[in-house]
């Protein structure tokens, strides 16, 4: 019979049937059901197995606090483990399976753990598995790991899209139960911009689960009407299915909105949206969560929280059992009997602990069958509604490391004084437990907030409601049976575990938590922490306030990792920065390489070339033989202007800059303030008060940042201004013996002879009949070379035009690989050499650091360990056997010396194959390297399976006198 436990009424639509599949069985539910309510309606009580003992587990609650009913939802790549059935909105075509069992759920093979449970008491794994030593990795740990965890990832990429959003408001109301709805309405009427968020798909909170009346109508109806009113107001944003999961600094709250989790598939729409909500004020109306009572075998399927039972009966139209008993230690639990009877469900007993009655044991391994009371009676029941009291949901109030305080009159922890700034609390979350007082408190809180924010419109009047009293008692644990009594249902933590842990000296609440794992499961102890603390207090003889709580941390309920990542997936993880000639390069056979976020042409393949070496060797050979063109736009460019520009440069570079003539470029050695070489580049003086600085690609942004620091913080009255122009100018290296000839056909009316425009000259100019440009005669390749810059929007055209003019010289485009080969041939330091650990002395440039002026880093560059004579020096290497290829990262050892760190003499930083020399070359740092030319050392690279002898030489492998670039 379909849905044997379905009863009339509730907020489900019994005209709208939905089909779903559970553990392979086809079942029916209704729109408005959760998976949990639909399972219960179909008479299914066993839904999972506990973590350690694999005991049968049933649905315990009706909310996000659910510790037991964790299911694997959906299939394939969308499969989602550990999903609370109580929070899954039923949809047509839903597929779910149970978790954490070997073999069928009903016959879990690992249930054997329960039989050996005395061996598995708290912390047992710390006391064993140590011998034999090898067995840990080979046997014990693999077994532990395979038993650990609950659900399973599909190991396929998450197929869904997630979005990030930003919202601003005057008041964020967290929770849309009676407190939240009242407050939102009052604040909105007063004129505040309000966001009202609730984790449920139907706002109303406990009003939907209970039978209280508000404003002379059923609570659920009032909730519905109030929602409609709020939704119609332009200054209100309603956010159901949205959990406010964390309170962060400065009024920023994190929210997660579930957009398509209640649909059979997302159809390409974002599955969830991660919201960052910036609110002037926030009001926590998150209500309270019910907790259990500890008694023997209180964990069987069918033992449920009383409030949850009422929710299933009243909201979902489901009888959780045919014979329901009620066990409570407070006045609220008694409502359950009345609600059950009103729906014609048999109540087999009402056990009020305050009167001295108690349940001391239960039976029914796969599902509750009967209870035993302390007076000896045996009661038949297939469902036991337990209420151990209500714990205010204080979590967000403690996200800034506050702690709640204990309140004896409600037997719960309530928010204390040190709340996150701007956050206040109203309702059960504040320890106000009865409906009329909740509504009054929320209304007043909202009025006060509206007033504080300067919204003077009338907030209206709070609605009336039925009143009640709440009487709690300090009855936590029932004795009278030697069997285990559960506290944490998911992690299988019992009262015995807590007591044992304290006997073993783990007495602080944090120690008990970590040793027993109480409160560390996916529910983070929502239904068990307070109970656990009370038991600890009893065991230690301390009062509950002295025992204290553990730390509350975000997220309030778990949030999908995909949501935090948002759209930055796959290729969109980071932006692509493209050079101005990117399209040209793409069309001309380029393979690209990442340089930070830039894509740069690495080489340009010609038809017939088999591997990258063919292309690179050709590019190098042709550039050195005739002319090559390379896009060097990515290197940083900073425009520096002002009357004090020269003085400024003189202070930020370690070498002198005051006397750089107009029309000249100078190499600039920039140190970090701690004396380490930070960046090197050039600085060109285009005019009296106008310079252009270049930096390496990687440091473009950070050099600019440091210069601005110097300008604004160190010397605020120097007349100097900086503009980052890296993206503003497209820049191309034109290198090789025919570079002058090529550029003579490009640059308008300028004498480019060696006399008129010598090495290290610079000038503004025009190209191709009037386009503004800048020309710099600098050389990274060691050849006669220039760099020519045009405004970036002409970059693509410029590349094409240069290549066209270059045709007569057989000009080649060259990429970063050839660029690298040439600079290594010349012994120029670049990123591998300037790695943040390099001194000027290591580069052989110690003399460049002027001692006659104060510049950034000069003082600390003189520290003794940094100027040692026997320190590392940048030198060149060739393989003794010229047919061998050097590897970067090899360490240098003396021949015959032990291969250990004490004998480590340095390392190879960069290597390349030199087409000109016909063999592999390298540069690197070697202790006393400058004195050792001609000697040999071992280049030791075991991770590359290489150990060869290399010859030490000058790092300037070709044209050491630098004649070519000066020609």
């Amino acid at each position, binding site marked *: 019979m379909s849905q044997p436990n379905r009863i009339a009424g509730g907020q489900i639509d019994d005209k709208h049937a939905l089909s779903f599949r559970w553990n392979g069985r086809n079942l029916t539910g209704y729109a408005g059901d959760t998976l949990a309510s639909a399972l219960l309606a179909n008479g299914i009580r066993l839904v999972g197995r506990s973590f350690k003992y694999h005991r049968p587990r049933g649905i315990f609650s009706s909310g996000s606090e659910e510790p037991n009913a964790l299911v694997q939802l959906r299939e394939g790549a969308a499969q989602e483990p550990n999903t609370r059935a109580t929070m899954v909105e039923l949809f047509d075509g839903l597929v779910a399976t149970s978790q954490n069992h070997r073999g069928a759920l009903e016959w879990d093979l690992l249930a054997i753990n329960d039989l050996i449970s005395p061996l598995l008491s708290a912390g047992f794994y710390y006391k064993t598995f140590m011998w034999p030593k090898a067995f840990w990795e080979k046997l014990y740990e693999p077994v532990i790991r395979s038993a*650990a965890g609950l659900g399973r*990832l599909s190991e396929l990429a998450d197929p869904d899209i997630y979005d990030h959003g930003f919202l601003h408001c005057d008041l964020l109301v967290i929770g849309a139960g009676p407190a939240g709805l009242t407050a939102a309405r009052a604040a909105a009427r007063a004129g505040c911009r309000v966001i009202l968020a609730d984790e449920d798909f139907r706002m109303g909170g406990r009003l939907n689960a209970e039978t209280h009346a508000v404003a002379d109508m059923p609570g659920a109806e009032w909730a519905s009407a109030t929602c409609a009113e709020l939704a119609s107001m332009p200054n209100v944003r309603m956010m159901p299915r949205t959990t406010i999961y964390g309170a962060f600094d400065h009024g920023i709250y994190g929210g997660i909105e579930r957009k398509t989790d209640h649909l059979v598939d997302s159809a390409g729409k974002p599955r969830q949206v991660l919201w960052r909500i910036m609110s002037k004020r926030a009001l926590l109306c998150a209500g309270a969560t019910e907790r259990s009572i500890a008694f023997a075998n209180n964990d069987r399927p069918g033992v449920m929280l009383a409030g949850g039972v009422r929710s299933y009966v009243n909201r979902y139209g489901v009888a959780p059992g045919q014979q329901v008993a009620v066990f409570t230690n407070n006045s609220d639990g008694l409502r359950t009997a009345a609600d059950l009877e009103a729906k014609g469900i048999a109540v087999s007993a009402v056990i009020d602990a305050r009167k001295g009655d108690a349940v001391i044991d239960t039976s029914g391994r796969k599902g509750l069958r009967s209870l035993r009371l302390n007076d000896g009676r045996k009661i038949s029941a297939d469902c036991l509604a337990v209420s151990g009291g209500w714990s205010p949901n204080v979590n967000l109030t403690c996200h800034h490391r506050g702690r709640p305080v204990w309140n004896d009159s409600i037997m719960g922890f309530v928010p204390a004084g040190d709340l996150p700034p701007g956050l206040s609390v109203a309702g059960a979350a504040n320890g106000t437990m009865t409906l009329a007082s909740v509504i009054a408190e929320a209304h007043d809180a909202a009025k006060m907030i509206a007033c504080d924010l300067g919204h003077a419109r009338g907030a209206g009047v709070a609605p009336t409601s039925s009143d009640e009293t709440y009487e709690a008692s300090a009855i936590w644990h029932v004795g009278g049976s030697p069997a285990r009594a559960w506290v944490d249902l998911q992690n299988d933590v019992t009262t015995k575990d807590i007591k044992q842990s304290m006997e073993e000296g783990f007495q602080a609440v944090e120690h008990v938590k*970590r040793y027993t794992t109480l409160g560390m499961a996916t529910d983070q102890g929502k239904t068990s922490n307070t109970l656990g603390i009370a038991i600890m207090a009893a065991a230690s003889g301390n009062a509950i306030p002295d025992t204290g709580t553990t730390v509350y941390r975000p997220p309030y309920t778990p949030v*999908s990792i995909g949501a935090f990542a948002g759209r930055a997936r796959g290729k969109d993880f980071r932006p692509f920065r493209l050079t101005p000639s990117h399209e040209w390069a793409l069309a001309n056979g380029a393979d690209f390489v990442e340089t930070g976020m830039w894509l740069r042409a690495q080489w340009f393949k010609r038809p017939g070339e088999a591997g990258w070496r063919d292309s690179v060797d050709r590019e190098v050979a042709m550039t050195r033989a005739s002319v090559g063109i390379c896009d060097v736009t990515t290197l940083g460019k900073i425009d520096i202007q002002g009357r004090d520009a020269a003085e400024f440069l003189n202070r930020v570079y370690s070498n002198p800059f005051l006397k750089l003539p107009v029309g000249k470029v100078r190499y600039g050695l920039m140190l970090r303030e701690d004396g380490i070489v930070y960046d090197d580049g050039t600085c060109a003086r285009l005019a009296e008060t106008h310079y252009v600085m270049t930096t390496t690609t990687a440091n473009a942004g950070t050099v600019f940042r440091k210069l601005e620091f110097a300008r604004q913080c160190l010397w605020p009255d120097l007349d100097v201004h900086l503009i980052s122009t890296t993206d503003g100018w497209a820049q191309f290296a034109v290198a090789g013996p025919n570079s002058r000839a090529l550029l003579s056909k490009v640059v308008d009316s300028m004498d480019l002879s060696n006399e008129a425009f010598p090495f290290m000259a610079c000038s503004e100019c025009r190209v191709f009949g009037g386009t503004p440009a800048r020309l710099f005669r600098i050389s990274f390749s060691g050849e006669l070379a220039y760099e020519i810059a045009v405004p970036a929007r002409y970059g693509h055209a410029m590349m094409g035009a240069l290549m066209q003019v270059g045709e007569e010289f057989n000009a080649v485009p060259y990429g970063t690989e050839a660029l690298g080969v040439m600079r290594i041939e010349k012994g120029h330091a670049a990123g591998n050499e300037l790695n943040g650990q390099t001194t000027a002395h290591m580069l052989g440039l110690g003399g460049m650091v002027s001692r006659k002026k104060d510049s950034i880093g000069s003082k600390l560059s003189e520290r003794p360990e940094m100027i040692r004579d026997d320190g590392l020096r940048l030198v060149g290497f060739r393989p003794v056997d010229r047919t061998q290829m050097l590897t970067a990262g090899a360490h240098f050892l003396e021949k015959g010396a032990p291969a250990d760190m004490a004998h480590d003499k340095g390392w190879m930083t960069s290597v390349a194959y030199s087409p000109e020399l016909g063999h592999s070359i390298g540069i690197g740092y070697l202790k006393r390297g400058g004195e050792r030319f001609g000697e040999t050392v071992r280049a030791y690279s075991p991770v590359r399976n290489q150990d060869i002898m290399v010859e030490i030489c000058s790092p300037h492998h070709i044209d050491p006198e630098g004649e070519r670039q000066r020609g």
Partner: protein
Amino acid sequence: MRYSAFKILKEALTGNRGWKPVWRHPEPNPEYDIIIVGGGGHGLATAYYLAKRFGLTNVAVLEKGWLGSGNIGRNTTIIRSNYLLEGNQPFYELSLKLWEGLEQDFNYNAMVSQRGIMNLIHSDAQRDAFVRRGNAMRLSGADAVILDRDGIREKCPFLDFDNARFPIQGAIWQPRGGTVRHDAVAWGYARGADERGVDIIQNCEVTGFQIENGVCHGVETSKGPIRAKKIAVCVAGSSSRVMEKAGMRLPIESHVLQAFVSEGLKPVIPGVITFGAGHFYVSQSNKGGLVFGGDIDGYNSYAQRGNLPVVEDVCEGGMAIMPMIGRARLLRMWGGIMDMSMDGSPFIDKTGIDGLYFNGGWCYGGFKATPASGFCYAHLLATGAPHPVAQHYRLDRFLRGAAIDEKGSGAQPNLH
């Protein structure tokens, strides 16, 4: 009491009532030979090795909260010895060797799990840097292997090899790296030290130092004054505020590092994996949760909590290399106080005040150093000389220009 499977069986058969307290809760004596300030991983390890290896037991560990409540109680549990520089690598290799024998040494299962650590490589320059590092590791006697894409795919088929913004080009892999159950480390060392007579005093905060004429004679605490010949501070992120009471300023800034755990999952991540083109590293604990983290937030903080940009950044990094984790849920996020030093490397040294010693500056890498830090600190306290592998961890190294700067970031703590 010695722990073993037999003991568990015996106790199981007699109702688990015979377990003895893992440590005592003594009141402090008026005087000790050595006081260790800080009952975290390093402090407890120091006490253990003082007692076990050097026979010094007239020692007290003073902890302001509950034992192990500092960073030892919340970290991403990784152990490895894959450092680059001579000042560091031999130290971390010693630490890894101590990890390997730890459980047998202190008879407590810390679940030292050496399932390997894999650092992904995404560019040639990065590969060259890792080759340099791998060779340094081998020179120090540690293990290092360079893997190609196929080698990585064999171990971790779920990584994104096809659609990544920064494609995986290779990895450096240390087979002996892995994870350890962090709480067990604190408890194991505490138990071992306590057994041998060390007093571990919890809820005892040091409020001042008794210093006269450049000599430290003891401490003022919330439980009264306690004298000692040697006072050894190791309080990680609280270093500055404790040493300030001795009139010292340190080359340290305190920063927040966030870490995260997911809900428990069946085994899916075999070892430790780190992303090379973003801030993300992950492992899977023996309880099934994915333990992961990334970069520090970047601003000075003692708040022990961070903000959202880092959470998003870390998860972006995770999804970039293993997009399967989108369906897993972040269960809990923490923040700790990291003692970020000016070169990213620690200090284990005497101070300018006789009798006062300092151990700190571990940045976010202190957990793996726990055994060697304790061992070397004990060595310094017992013999007066630094252990050879820790000889460079001096407070005056910046004065001399001898920074131990693995990343090459310079004197800016939040870049390390």
